[in-house]
């Protein structure tokens, strides 16, 4: 008799539980924010509108997902050693996740492996790093961006003329030593953009890339390089700058000299660059989605910590902006961070 009672009771309980659970709707899973996450974000440089916007995006996500965000960046984009030290620091600081915009594709590979050894997930943002241990990459395709830039510049030049490219890299000694080693020490995004640009331009026999200069991330040096380029190539008809600093430097020189005949396609969307477009100094700029990059990096970091599967690669896209479309509402939203 007791056994039956036990079974009956059990049956009743199950019935009740089923009844109750069917009534109380279970809410769909969303990212739990009850625990504070410790996420370190290390980008290439602590200056520049681009990185500020990345930071803004990261901070927006940090606020939303209850993340303690530690934002770190060296003074210049070429300071690989400093960046490595920062990653080491984050490993020691036992970050939950490290978000890294690598200044050097190979230069940071080892330290990323080390982080992975300590079971700290690493998310690549903007620039990839040469490690298989990276959990996910968030950013735009540099190759595509380079092609977009080239396409517009060729259009502006009507398919002929000399072009100077102003790229950035983090190993200034590479040029000096001239040793084109097997290992790619440059920043991945810079290389990709250049490759994309050159590949596109190669289709036009009458367009010649006469000079490629590499600037460290200081505007004054970029200006210097631009001046040098202008002196070296008096017939230069177009300039393509492949990052924010280079763009600002080149635009400043063009404006200073009043050289309206030289067409320029810039990179990234700092307010100064927008002004240059409005002033007609720069004809177009290729923009990325820095806010989205920052935001998605932190969001994915939180998702990884909660065991949610994230895609291996998130392409946030690039866009070409010129005077005609810069005031389109959807582009305004991308170009100018909403500051209250």
């Amino acid at each position, binding site marked *: *008799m007791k056994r*039956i*009672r036990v079974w*009956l*009771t059990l049956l*009743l*309980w199950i019935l*009740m539980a089923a*009844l*109750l659970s069917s*009534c*109380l*709707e279970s*809410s*769909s899973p*969303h990212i739990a924010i009850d625990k504070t996450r410790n996420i370190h974000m290390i980008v290439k440089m602590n200056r520049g509108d681009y990185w500020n916007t990345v930071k*803004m*995006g990261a901070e*927006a996500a940090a606020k*939303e997902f209850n993340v303690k965000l530690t934002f770190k960046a060296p003074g210049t984009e070429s300071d690989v050693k400093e960046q490595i030290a920062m990653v080491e620091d984050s490993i020691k600081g036992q970050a939950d996740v490290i978000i890294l915009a690598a200044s050097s594709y190979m230069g940071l590979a080892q330290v990323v492996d080390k982080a992975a050894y300590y079971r700290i997930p690493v998310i690549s943002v903007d620039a990839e790093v040469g490690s298989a241990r990276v959990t996910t990459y968030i950013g735009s395709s540099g190759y595509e961006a380079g092609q977009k830039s080239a396409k517009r510049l060729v259009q502006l030049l009507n398919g002929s003329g000399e072009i100077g490219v102003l790229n950035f890299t983090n190993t200034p000694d590479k040029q000096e030593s001239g040793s084109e080693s097997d290992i790619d020490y440059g920043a991945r995004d810079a290389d990709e953009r250049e490759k994309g640009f050159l590949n596109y331009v190669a289709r036009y026999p009458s367009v010649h890339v006469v000079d490629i200069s590499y600037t460290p991330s200081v505007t004054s040096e970029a200006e210097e390089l631009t001046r040098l380029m202008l002196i070296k190539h008096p017939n230069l008809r177009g300039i393509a700058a492949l990052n924010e600093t280079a763009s600002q430097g080149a635009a400043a020189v063009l404006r200073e000299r009043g050289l309206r005949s030289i067409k320029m396609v810039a990179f990234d969307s700092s*307010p100064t660059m*927008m*002004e240059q477009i*409005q*002033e*007609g100094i720069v004809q177009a700029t290729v923009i990325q*989605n820095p*806010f*989205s990059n920052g*935001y*998605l990096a932190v969001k994915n970091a939180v998702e990884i910590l909660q065991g949610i599967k994230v895609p291996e690669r998130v392409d946030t896209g690039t866009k070409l902006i010129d*005077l005609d479309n810069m*005031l389109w*509402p959807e582009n*305004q*939203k*991308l*170009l*100018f*961070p*909403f*500051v*209250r």
Partner: protein
Amino acid sequence: MLKERANFFPLRPQRRGTRRGKFTSRLLSIQVILTVTLTSIAVLVTVIVSFALYNRFAKTAEENASLNMQQIIEQVNYNLGLYVNGMRNIYKKAEQQIGQNAAIDSPMLQESLSTLLESREDLVSFAVFTPEGRLVLDVPSAPMRRNTRMGEQSWFIAPKKAGDISFSQPHVQNLFKKRYTWVVSMSKMIAYTDHGTRKKGILLIDFNFRTIDELSKQVKLGKRGYAYILDSLGNIVYHPQQQLIYAGLKYENVEPVLEYAYRSYLDESTGEKRFITVRTLNQTGWKIVGVAYYDEIVTTKRDLNQFMMLFLPLSILCVIVVSVLLSARIARPISKLERTVQQVVEGDLNTSINVRGAYEVEQLSKRFNLMLQRIRKLMDQIIYEQETKRKGELEVLQSQINPHFLYNTLNSVIRLAERGKNEEVVTMIQSLSKFFRISLSKGKNIITLREELDHIRHYLVIQSFRFKNKFRYEIKAQPEVLNCLTVKLILQPIVENALYHGIEMMPDEGLIEIAAELRNGLVVITVRDNGLGMSGETLKGILKGGVKSGSGSGVGVRNVHERIRLYYGREYGLSFESELEEGTTVTVAFPAQYGDDGETATEGAKSL
């Protein structure tokens, strides 16, 4: 003892060897049925009532939450209305100042507009343009950019169409150098005086989102809830996560919002239940949309859920416990009764049932006890009867060769022989021989009445030799009664009694009349003597065995009586009528039965 009884009652049900179907029978026990019924009814009622209440409360809670939220959004709407009105007032003030001032480029106008601008944190700039787009006045003064493409912008186009102040959607103001600010623009065609001539121009006032932000920030709709503002075209004017929306990282489902000016509904498009409340600002056509997460705002419901989760199992547990106890209380006496009866069934008749419980059960137990008592009594009676029967038969057996009687009779024979009365000796010996023959009857207990009467006749013949001329006897029998069966040796003790107690002491000659007849299916034999008779007390004691003649043949009258009763039933037997000095009549009555085989009858007939 038990075993003995078991042998005694071979037909009594034996203890069941195997308990087949124990489980099913247990399932159908009163307690289980009661428990299940009580529990299920109680649980059903509890659940139904709880859910009815729950739904009622939940609905009320939902309504309250919705109402509360609507009030909050209403408040925001009101505040925003006030704010927009304030902005309009500023616009009118500026318009007034510009219109009244004699020259558009006078420093005084610049001054007063600057003061107005600085009075509010949210004002960004004042500017007047000619309808062709030339800048006439700007406060604060800043160089204008080239390629502003203002002709394409809504704030520039709208005043040309409408007379009233128009509010633009949020946009980046690209007119002036040094800043790209997100603003909302108010614009209208106004009149101003330039170099003495009255001209028409567009007054543009930009304001930023500071105040709107602050107004919307006050909205507390649970932890995650928020409010946002849409313009009439569905562009987001303000959103707490505006940049995320602008970057395309978040979406707001604005279509259902745009369809209504005033609405509250439950939205599940994001997979989560959300309350959406829409209010429209009349001045600008902006829509204030409140978004609250259902599970956060309807906290009452969640509390209720928790309470229910606690209360329901608890109450059901209580119900189960109570029903188990209750049913146990009801069922225990019955199952106890069942066990006791089982004991009885197994043969222990001495079990006394003393079950306390419900009235019916107690009654049942009492009645059962009574029944048991009766069974015990009957059982005792049967045992007693059986024993008596055997004893009686033994006595009869003994009486068949009563040595005393034989001795007396043989003495009489000797005496007769001495006197040389050969004929009488022969008769006597003949009678004696027949007497014993019938007495023995091959060991049978039942003989025909004919034989019985023969037997008594021989006895009387023998006795008449002993009591010389002391008595006479008459034996009358209806012919049809002769073939009836009877227990043997029933008349001899009676006649013996009559002789020894009634007639022997009598001075006169006695008479013994024996008559047998069939009366209403009964064999009635009367033995009458005219002897001394008996007193009433003797009469009473005679059947109870109190009176016992010491010199009798051994089988008493009582033995006869009991044998008849044992064989035929309690209502049959002997009855005595007696009066002192008059005589005694003994009536023997028992049902008439006929032997199925005629052997005894024919034998008896032969011996007559």
